[in-house]
């Protein structure tokens, strides 16, 4: 028992391997379905629009796209005459289906992960399905400069085992946050660094440097171990493990940010430390620095038209997504809300009024672009043979104001059907709380800052 554990400990890489193996074991139990969708207008997003076309789904994958396809034995047929099929919508910024959002007790909490606290019971999963969403990138909140790790999950509503939600093979991602949130929570809330934007930069540089030292210490130990059987490993620190993985490019940074100056700051820091990939979140002033973002290869995940709720979010425009797209930045539109994720297709449509994006460009903002940002574009984000059968069927073109989702399919399994949508779709019921006919609801449902009142921000100092 002893020897076995220690050999496992001595190589952090083996630990990562162990957890990867654990994930793939669960993936074998994920339900995959077969279905034949006929006579639909298929919006592939990457290969144009196909009229009166069939899609055959087998074992959760898109097996064939064509006309006049026939269903193999036992495969259900869906008549989609007059309907539009698009790739399942991917929400690149969400806080649904997790029990915790913010571990706001420290400005650097890279070691925590919302993937550890997934909540398959969350009805928000179902409601988003009713808006055509099949994948959500559920994230740590924006209270910390370096927050916790996120998780890319599929809306397999109906499962009760949290291990069945993550999309197997999706790259690891982590949440960063710049600007007013971390400086308010930690600087003003706890009187610790950061209290200003320059403090935020320092926290990141310091964390990256510490992680570099940590990695070097472990590399030295690994080298020594070859010749010296008595070598003692350096102190294990999960937080620095994760940050070292970021520096190696194994974990993608998703950074909550608004102001052009702080975004450019982070790009400088990343260049200094050799990190090549990043997706900025919100990026309301992204239109000011679109060429710089494109030159770095950074992605941007924005709101369609949500701003002015904080000072750093004042200088904004509804043309943001269009301007970024025109300048060659991989842009997505996200919800950061369990209300907005129910109509992301309308959010995308706003870029046609504000920016004249084409149908495919607008649809890309909620399908193939977020897939590229999340590193899953080989699996989802468009309707192509071999990709996962994550599909949304609408009764009108999804960019039309009249569109209503009819069926939403995840891995070939119909997870939402407007014809079979009773009022009570809950998976769990609290046995003790009295049923109320009305309840008081205060504030909007932005979960990005949930959990930060732990530090008594509203009562302290």
């Amino acid at each position: 028992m002893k020897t076995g554990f220690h050999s496992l400990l001595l190589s952090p890489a083996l630990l990562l391997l162990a957890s990867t193996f654990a994930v793939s074991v669960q993936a074998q139990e994920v339900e995959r379905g077969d279905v034949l969708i006929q006579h639909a207008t298929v919006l592939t997003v990457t290969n144009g629009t196909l009229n009166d076309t069939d899609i055959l789904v087998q074992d959760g994958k898109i097996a064939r796209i064509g006309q006049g396809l026939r269903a193999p034995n036992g495969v259900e047929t869906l008549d989609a005459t007059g309907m539009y099929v698009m790739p399942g919508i991917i929400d690149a910024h969400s806080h649904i289906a997790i029990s915790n959002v913010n571990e706001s007790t420290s400005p650097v909490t890279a070691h925590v992960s919302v993937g550890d606290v997934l909540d398959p019971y969350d009805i928000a999963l179902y409601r988003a399905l009713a808006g055509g969403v099949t994948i959500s990138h559920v994230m740590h909140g924006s209270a910390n400069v370096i927050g916790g790790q996120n998780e890319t999950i599929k809306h397999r509503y109906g499962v009760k085992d949290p291990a069945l939600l993550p999309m197997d093979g999706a790259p690891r991602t982590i949440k960063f946050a710049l600007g007013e949130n971390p400086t308010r929570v930690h600087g003003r809330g706890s009187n610790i660094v950061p209290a200003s934007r320059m403090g935020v930069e320092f926290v990141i540089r310091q964390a990256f440097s510490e992680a570099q030292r940590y990695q070097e210490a472990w590399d030295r130990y690994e080298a020594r171990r070859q010749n010296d059987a008595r070598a003692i490993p350096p102190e294990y620190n999960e937080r620095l493990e994760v940050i070292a993985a970021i520096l190696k490019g194994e974990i993608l940074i998703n950074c909550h940010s608004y102001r052009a100056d702080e975004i450019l700051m982070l790009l400088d820091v990343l260049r200094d430390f050799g990190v090549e990939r990043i997706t900025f979140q919100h990026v309301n002033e992204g239109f000011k620095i679109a060429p710089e973002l494109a030159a770095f290869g950074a992605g941007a995940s924005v709101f369609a038209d949500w701003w002015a709720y904080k000072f750093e979010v004042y200088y904004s425009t509804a043309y943001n997504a269009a301007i970024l797209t025109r300048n060659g930045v991989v842009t997505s539109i996200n919800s950061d809300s369990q209300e907005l994720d129910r109509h992301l297709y309308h959010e995308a449509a706003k870029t046609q009024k504000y920016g004249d994006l084409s149908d495919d460009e607008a649809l890309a903002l909620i399908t193939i672009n977020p897939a590229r940002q999340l590193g899953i574009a080989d699996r989802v984000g468009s309707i192509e043979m071999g990709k996962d059968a994550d599909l949304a069927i609408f009764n009108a073109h999804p960019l039309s104001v009249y569109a209503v989702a009819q069926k939403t399919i995840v891995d070939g399994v119909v997870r939402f059907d407007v014809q079979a949508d009773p009022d009570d779709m809950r998976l769990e019921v609290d046995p003790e709380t009295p049923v109320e006919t009305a309840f008081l609801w205060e504030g909007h449902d932005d979960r990005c800052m949930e959990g930060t009142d732990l530090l008594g921000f509203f009562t302290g100092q």
Partner: protein
Amino acid sequence: MLLTVLMWMPSGAQAQLSEDVPQVTRTYALEHARVVQAPGRVLERATVIVRDGLIAAIGPNVSIPFDAERIAADSLVIYAGFIDGLSHAGIPEPEQPRNQPRPDDPGNPPDEEAGIQPERDVRTLLDPKEKSLATLRNAGFTVAHVVPYGQMLPGTGAVILLAGDDPKALVLKGDASLFAQFTGARRMYPATDMAVMSKLRQLYREAGRRQLMETRYAEDPTGLERPEYDPAHYALFPVLDGEKPVYFHTENALDLHRALDLRQRLGFPLVLTGLSQSFDAVDALKQADVPLLLTLDLPEAPQTPREGQDDAAETDSTETPPTMGPTDEAEELPQAQPPDYNPDLRTRSFEDAEAEKKNLEARQEMTREQYFASAATLHDAGLRFGFTTLDAKPEDVMKNLRKMVEHGLPEDAALAALTTTPAEILGLSASLGTVEPGKMANLVVASGPIFEEDTKVRYVFIDGQKYEPASAPATGRRRPATRN
């Protein structure tokens, strides 16, 4: 002469401090009782001899020792004393600190403030006068595995007798377990459940490294840096070696999955406790194959005043068939009418709000039934479990047990969960759990079969000592137990 008699007191007279009456005898004969030696093993009419803390003999015709206190037990039923798998009995509940100053660095607080105290030994916290001991005892419990109050890692547990004069006399088996729960620190790291999980992983892995350092240093210190003692890490060494189990408390199905995830990643010996809502995770439990302790807490219906239920509510669309009234079949269910929940109900307008509310309440009632049937569900899945009173009010324990039996838990399985299974989980089967000669005299003597509604506990024997819960007078007014 009188003086001499008064001054002569047998040396074993320290038994009751509250009364200066010396104990006459430690031998008892419970005559002609129905003895349930173990689930499924019953002696219809036998006498049990208790002597010097042990069950000396059982049988229909055993000879009664001359010094035995004879108790006529003709109408009584004797069971092995119940064992509580996880509890805070005997530990005074600490006061909540008020106006705690915010730590200077909430991200890196001292371990004790953050609730990380695996080294804290529950034996140093025991108080034999604590009320919970008496309350549990009156419900028929004789032994409990107790753990400290606290946050994520409150300390190590011990198995204790539920009666004794001083803290040392209570302890049966010390240093028995490591207690863990998903309770974060207040206003400092680790506050959320995900942080608790992270901290546990961090502690465990770093403890492995420190154990390695200790081992190497002990073998040959030359050339090696001195390992620094850290109580939190060092307390985990026996867990790393697989010698000390972690009792992980869960309050819902998600907690359960998360505890199992930690075990899968770290590999520590695990006992899962609580298991509320475990009916949603039966497959995971079967796959995990770990000892289980099910909570004796059950949900209660909300306290809202109910209007007359005789008026049929205006239901929408399809109506369910009329519910069955009180019939012979009703004895399976505690109430005659199953709730009539319509899963396909669609509420079209505000006028249907009342119908929707009734529908939701019906579903909530069905959910409560699911919780009541939890024990039966686990049993039907082939899982064996003990019980824990950690989340339960001791006064509700018998009532909840009976409810579980009413909802499908076989009586023998319930008795096993109270006796043989927890004895096995705690590693004390050799001395506890059944009524057999040679075992410790821990007994419950009840006025009838224990799971019947009106049965009362008459006596409880702990380590061969007799305790008598004060019986409720016939006036129907309940009184707390007096002499315990």
